[in-house]
């Protein structure tokens, strides 16, 4: 088992290197590599993966494992391709001016690169935790050193390699989580297809800390389950650093800490009963000693310097065009507007107000519109809608089968905790942008696993067929969408 884990670590490192290498190569030859050329290469590589699978099928060497590898390969191709053909100022969020005079993500990175200092205020985006920006500026410095670029645009642009690497690593870690949950081959394939081709993992490749935050959440989930199985020093330390760096990336990683805390407590009670609790208590103390200062030092700094409260988020006010608090709670959280569901697959950023619909739409297209033949986004949208509903059914089913499979029920509980936190966040900050799925990307992984595991095991034949059909439609349309976009 340890070998498999080591293999995964190597895969993660390799994929990160591949991302940086791809970006560096593109930077060096960007005058010769056009966007259509990148898209053509993406398409060719995906066709190649499909052709390889067909060949395996013909030669009767087709196994689920091969298919999963091909899916991961295709997922990574899509992510790297998207990173290369999308400059940092396209489909961006809160970038503001690309200069140190701004207060957006770009200025944050440029401040670190050019002044070697953290922000000197907490205005606009400067209240954000610094880890992503630190790692981003390091990656940027490294790449721009190789390419000898002195254009500030590319200083900022290169930081998206961190997001891309995180997005690719999430895919690999998702495979590990599937193994932890002992998913059968077809179940794992279904789950990996969803994670590999879920567009929010492509769209997250921008200069924001969101996908790095998702990466740490995914790691935290994996190692919480591993810690429960084996609460040794290795798992405790990894978990401590994951939470430390995670919270240093974004405070919202702490949402998962509620779940980890419950797991700690359950395990501790169990060990107390067995009178073996003392070493674990010591390890947990070390966990706290590492994770708390690592995660919260920036908050303490900002509190001392700017009296910034813990958990502070930028307020837009009721007069903002994005304010949705004038709609009833039912319209926002319970009953979707069917006219809105059927009118367009894209979010109307200024008008949409239903959390579920906004989340599904933004998970597929962000807050943007694309000029592609309309049938592609519609297929993607319909299949995503069906998958979302099936995922909720699967989560409920997992809770229903609590006695048979406690681990899967726990995964369902993770989703519930996260969803509650999303609702609370939206109640506190009732704005269109608060509903964007980029803050909830983490949910894809547990929901994909629940969907694959519960519906394949307990679903009727019709449900299974619907699931296969939707996953196939979802994957194909996602690829087409982001190759043609």
């Amino acid at each position, binding site marked *: 088992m340890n070998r498999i884990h080591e293999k995964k670590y190597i895969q993660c490192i390799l994929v990160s290197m591949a991302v940086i290498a791809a970006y560096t190569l593109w930077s060096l030859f960007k005058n010769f590599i056009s966007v259509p050329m990148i898209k053509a290469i993406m398409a060719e590589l995906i066709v190649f993966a499909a052709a390889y699978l067909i060949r395996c099928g013909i030669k009767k060497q087709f196994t689920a494992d091969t298919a999963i590898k091909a899916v991961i390969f295709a997922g990574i191709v899509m992510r790297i391709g998207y990173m290369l053909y999308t400059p940092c100022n396209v489909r961006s969020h809160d970038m503001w001016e690309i200069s140190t005079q701004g207060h957006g993500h770009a200025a944050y990175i440029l401040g670190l690169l050019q002044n070697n200092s953290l922000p000197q205020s907490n205005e606009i985006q400067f209240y954000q935790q610094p880890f992503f920006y630190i790692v981003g500026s390091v990656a940027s410095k490294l790449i721009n050193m190789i390419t000898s670029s002195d254009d500030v645009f590319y200083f900022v642009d290169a930081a998206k390699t961190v997001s891309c690497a995180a997005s690719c690593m999430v895919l690999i870690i998702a495979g590990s989580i599937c193994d932890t949950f002992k998913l059968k081959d077809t179940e794992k394939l279904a789950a990996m297809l969803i994670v590999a081709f879920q567009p929010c993992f492509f769209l997250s490749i921008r200069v924001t800390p969101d996908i790095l935050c998702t990466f740490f959440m995914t790691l935290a989930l994996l190692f919480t389950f591993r810690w429960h199985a084996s609460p040794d020093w290795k798992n405790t330390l990894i978990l401590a650093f994951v939470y430390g760096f995670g919270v240093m990336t974004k405070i919202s990683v702490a949402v998962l800490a509620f779940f980890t805390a419950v797991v700690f407590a359950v395990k501790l009670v169990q060990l107390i009963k067995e009178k073996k609790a003392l070493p674990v208590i010591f390890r947990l103390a070390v966990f706290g000693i590492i994770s708390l200062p690592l995660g919260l030092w920036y908050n303490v700094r900002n509190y001392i310097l700017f009296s910034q409260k813990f958990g502070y988020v930028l307020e837009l006010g009721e007069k903002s065009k994005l304010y949705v608090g004038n709609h009833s709670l039912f319209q926002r959280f319970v009953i979707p507007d069917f006219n809105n569901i059927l009118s367009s697959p894209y979010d109307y950023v200024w008008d949409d107000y239903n959390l579920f619909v906004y989340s599904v739409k933004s998970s597929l297209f962000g807050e943007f519109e694309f000029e592609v033949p309309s049938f592609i986004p519609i297929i993607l949208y319909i299949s995503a809608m069906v998958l979302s509903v099936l995922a909720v059914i699967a989560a409920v089913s997992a809770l229903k089968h609590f006695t048979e499979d406690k681990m899967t029920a726990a995964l369902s509980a993770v989703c519930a905790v996260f969803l509650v936190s999303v609702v609370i966040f939206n109640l506190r900050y009732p704005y269109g942008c608060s509903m964007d799925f980029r803050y909830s990307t983490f949910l894809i992984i547990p929901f994909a696993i629940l969907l694959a595991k519960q519906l394949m095991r307990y679903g009727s*034949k019709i449900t299974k067929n619907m699931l296969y059909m939707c996953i196939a439609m979802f994957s194909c349309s996602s690829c087409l969408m982001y190759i043609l976009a």
Partner: protein
Amino acid sequence: MISVFIYMGIACFIFFFLFRKKLNSSSFNGYSLFELSVFYLLMRICPLFMLEERSMMNYIAFATDIILIAAAVTAFGKLCGVAGRKTAAALCLFSPLPVISIVCGNAVYTLAVFIVITAILAFICFIKKKFRKVPLRTFLNEYILFTAGGYFMLLDKECLSLSFMELVAADKFPVFTVLGLAAMVLSCVFTAIKLIGVRKGRTAEESIVKEACTESREPLVHESFGRKNCLHIIILTAVYAAAVFFRLGSFEAPQSSMKFSSVGNSEIVLDLGEYVSISKLDIFLGSNNNAKIALSAYNEVDREWILIDTDVALKSVFSWNEVPMSWNLRYIGIVFTEPKEYFINEIVVVDKEGNVLTPINSLDYPELFDEQEKYPEHATYYYRTMFDEVYHGRTAYEFYNDLPIYENTHPPLGKTLISLGIASFGMTPFGWRFVSAVFGTLMVPVMYIFAWKLSRRSETAFLGAALFCTEFMHFTLSRIATIDIIVALFILLMFFFMYCFTEEIKADRKLPKQSVWLLLCGISTALAVATKWTGIYAAAGIAVIFFVAVAERCVNDGGFRKNISYLSKLFGVCVVSFILIPAVVYSLSYLQFSEVYTDKNFVEHAISNSVNMLNYHSDAKAEHPYQSEWYEWLVDRVPLLDAVTAVPERGSISTVATFGNPLILICGLASFLHNFWLWRCKGCTKARFLVIAYLSMLMPWLFIHRTVFIYQYFGCIMIIILMICNSVMNLKKSKMAGIILICLSLQLFIMFFPVISGIEANRGYVQQYLEWLPTWVFE
């Protein structure tokens, strides 16, 4: 067109749902000719007549369809035998494409129908030849998927009136078109996969799970109607009455009035004694609406009247009409600009601070300033007429005072009854709403007894009555002086007595016993029709139920010939009950007309007014913000706001909205499907009764193109509650389900109480917690 598509979608869904269930039954051997005729009526005639206008092309498509059906059925018969032919005919009838080709009158669609039928026939030939052992029903799911695909594809195209090329343009998002296409492609893929599977030697898996069709769960204990039920009735009725009469309406309203007209007494000049800044005038208009006035202020320097507004309309009768007027003045001139006679009961002058000012010459107009204390701080529903009360309440007042009759678009009985309240409590909000409240309250025991009769169980009866008590629309209609609640009680009685008759006939009791129920049913029908013509819809429903019950009895008792003497006697009773009594009651209801307009006797008035009513309702079309279509009623989409008054200084509003309890309406849809299943698959006669009753109250609205509102659905809601009772009764954990339903319904009733009762509620609460849908705007 949307209406036809939705109707077709629902009809096809129900058919295929029941068809799949029926296929499981070993006794199923195709559909009878009678059933096929009903299907034809439902799927060809109804959609055609749902169209507002029909062209020659529609009729040509209709005629072509008959030929195609005949050809297809014959071909199917040759391929699949007699049973197969009957089933194929049903499947043909429930295919959306031919229906769409008829309603669109589109030759291309007709050609497509021909091609599809040919393709299906070719496919069947292929299956018969190559896969002899594979039953055709193996492909039922694929067929349904294909059919649904076609339906969705055309839904987008026809409802948006766009071509396919326009639909697939980048700026359009034809969700249904893509969904339809995907479904059609997938159905072909699944069919191919199944065929490949069969060829490879795997047995064609039956997609339909076989399960034995058992008889409907009848109640285990048949209890007698004893003390317990009486106690239930008393408690529920008392609680409901308390809720209905709670702040029903003010016992006071300005009564004394002065008559004005542009000819004669046309002016009012008010002298406030000194110059004051006034903010508004509030004028309580008596009988006769739409008074037109001109307002002016006197300029003492120029010694001239300055016109402020020449065209102010006082629209609502027996209501405070606000006239905003931001002026600093001493003299106010009010001139009536139309020759019609208007009655003004009271005028209130309000200054900028909100104080009521009394003109120093108020004694010149004693009737206009003698009841100033009746001027409310906020003119909520409590102090004035709301929605159609301006017609029905006012006309009831005219009936009572032998005045010319204003509202004559409905038969007079309902307004005659409302006038009883006015006679007892005066022309006040309480007075004109009293009879509605009484009728609404009386419906509770009737519903209880009906539900008990249906189930013979006090729990189910309690469930029915409790749901009815917490039904929003029942509550709102009980608190407004309109005729809808009155006709609803009579309709409920009609169905109840008809149900009692079917019970008697089922138990094979003697004719006199049956006749009692028929006579009572006839009287209820007469009263209902004399109140509102919607009673006729219910009459159609009871007619169907009656004929089915009688036919069933005769078939079980040796045929029609053997029962000829029974049938002739029954015919006599029916003539008296359903023709003679209604004709007499309907004519008598026009007595008031003959007293006011002596040129005709009451029978002549009944006939001439009925003709006028028919003409009026045929083209009563007007844009209204709260109008809604029949399919919107099913999901409670557009509430009707009877009264809205803002109370800005307290941040609250007073709203009276007419709409259904969402729990009851949504559960009702599920229970409708369940009852259909109970009827068609389990042979439950109660379910049959309820389904026919529901459809009879709903179906007529499919063919009506005038402006309609959600309250027209109230007749259906009464039946929905009974259907829920029947469904719950057939559940395994019926008691628990009933308790949960009552608790949820009560919770919703309490939650929504402010917007259905009109009591003042915090605006934030209404906006944040009660406006569930974008169309639910309660302010």
